[in-house]
């Protein structure tokens, strides 16, 4: 007989929901970057629709977490898992928002003539996307070392963002690029950098779930 059957079932359900949310978010990231490059308005609108679902999922998962807490009074690893999920879906939802932000820029710059991600930005995007994928993987496999590696990758993304910023400033000064395009490109880069940050957070929550220690909050 499995003890705490209902708790286990509730946790399984939570994990499925997180999986669903993560899948949608990752798809949105991929598609938003593609849509930006291809200037694909329809795609952008689809992304926005999907984000509504992501938000709904965050709501549902939050509610389910609270229900588990008052009903099952989880302790120790159960408690860490459940509160960890509660925190990381915020970051996941933010990632989804930033993907939507990129989609919005695609919509805004539909008339503009331009769009492309310059190589640095593309590099950032690749790493950021990988970080998101890894953070989600690490969560489902409880892989602490993968999480730690992913956290380190954030430095790369930050460095690349500095580079883009400096490049943009330089080119603005030289009046070598179209201001509107430049600004929006910077925005996109920023959003990518933020996505990477949030992926880092997800990894930190995973480490908290497994070890009880978090960068900001330590329970033990």
């Amino acid at each position, binding site marked *: 007989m499995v003890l*705490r059957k209902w708790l286990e079932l509730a946790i399984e359900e939570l994990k499925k929901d997180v999986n669903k949310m993560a899948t949608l978010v990752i798809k949105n990231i991929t598609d938003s970057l593609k849509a930006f490059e291809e200037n694909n308005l329809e795609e952008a609108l689809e992304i926005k629709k999907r984000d509504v679902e992501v938000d709904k999922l965050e709501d549902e998962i939050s509610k389910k977490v609270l229900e588990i807490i008052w009903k099952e*009074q989880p*302790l*120790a690893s159960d*408690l860490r898992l459940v509160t960890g999920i509660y925190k990381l879906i915020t970051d996941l939802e933010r990632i989804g928002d930033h993907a939507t932000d990129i989609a919005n820029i695609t919509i805004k710059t539909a008339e503009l003539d331009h769009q492309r991600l310059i190589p640095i930005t593309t590099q950032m995007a690749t790493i950021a996307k990988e970080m998101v994928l890894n953070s989600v993987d690490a969560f489902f496999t409880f892989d602490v070392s993968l999480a730690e590696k992913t956290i380190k990758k954030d430095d790369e993304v930050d460095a690349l963002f500095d580079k883009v910023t400096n490049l943009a400033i330089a080119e603005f000064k030289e009046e070598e690029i179209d201001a509107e395009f430049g600004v929006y490109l910077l925005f996109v880069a920023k959003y990518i950098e933020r996505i990477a940050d949030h992926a880092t957070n997800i990894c930190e929550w995973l480490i908290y779930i497994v070890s*009880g220690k978090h960068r900001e909050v330590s*329970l*033990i």
Partner: protein
Amino acid sequence: MFKVENMSLHYGEKMALDNINIEIKEKEVTAFIGPSGCGKSSFLRSLNRMNDLIEEAKIEGIVKLKGENIYDKKYDVIDLRTKVGMVFQSPNPFPMSIFENVVYGPKRQGVRNKKTLREIAEKALKQAALWEEVSSRLNESAMKLSGGQQQRLCIARTLAMEPEVILMDEPTSALDPIATQKIEDLIRELKNDYTIIIVTHNMQQAARISDKTAFFYMGELIEFDKTTKIFNKPKYDQTEKYITGRFG
């Protein structure tokens, strides 16, 4: 307050406790948790030598209270029990008046002065958060009180002896939630002045009121640590499994 070294307890052939080593600090609440039959109650009763009542019980090892081994032949058991009081699972007030119950202990120690006894009773009942409910009817039978009140009376009875340690063996398991709450609040107050050791089946209770928690399993002390550690990230898998309810 207590220092236990290599302590084992046998009931005849059967081993109840095996090689227990633990130090219990004063003016803290220490909780003993573990599945039924794991020995936590037996261990609790060893601390005030209530196990002496069981003929087949044999203790090995050392149990020191403030540096003195309480199982030493020269140690006065009666004196021990005035220093280490006990509250039981089912409230067990004597079939006497409320007042007589509270002063039972002091009277047996020879206190006769009526004024002194009244003062002792008032102090103890106030400490047990029962004074207001019974001050006007001290001569009524204790059996008329509700379960929760009876348990607080038993606590007052113990407090009247001015012990240093209060042992509690599942003190709220027979009470309703409100009575339980009152007693938990009381315990959290009392720990400022007394060392409290409580055996409980209720995990949440242990989490709420204790500073340190000891997990017993099959007669062994598996883990003993700060309560925050035990309930958030216990060191041992067995502790984790018990706390998360993955085994009874």
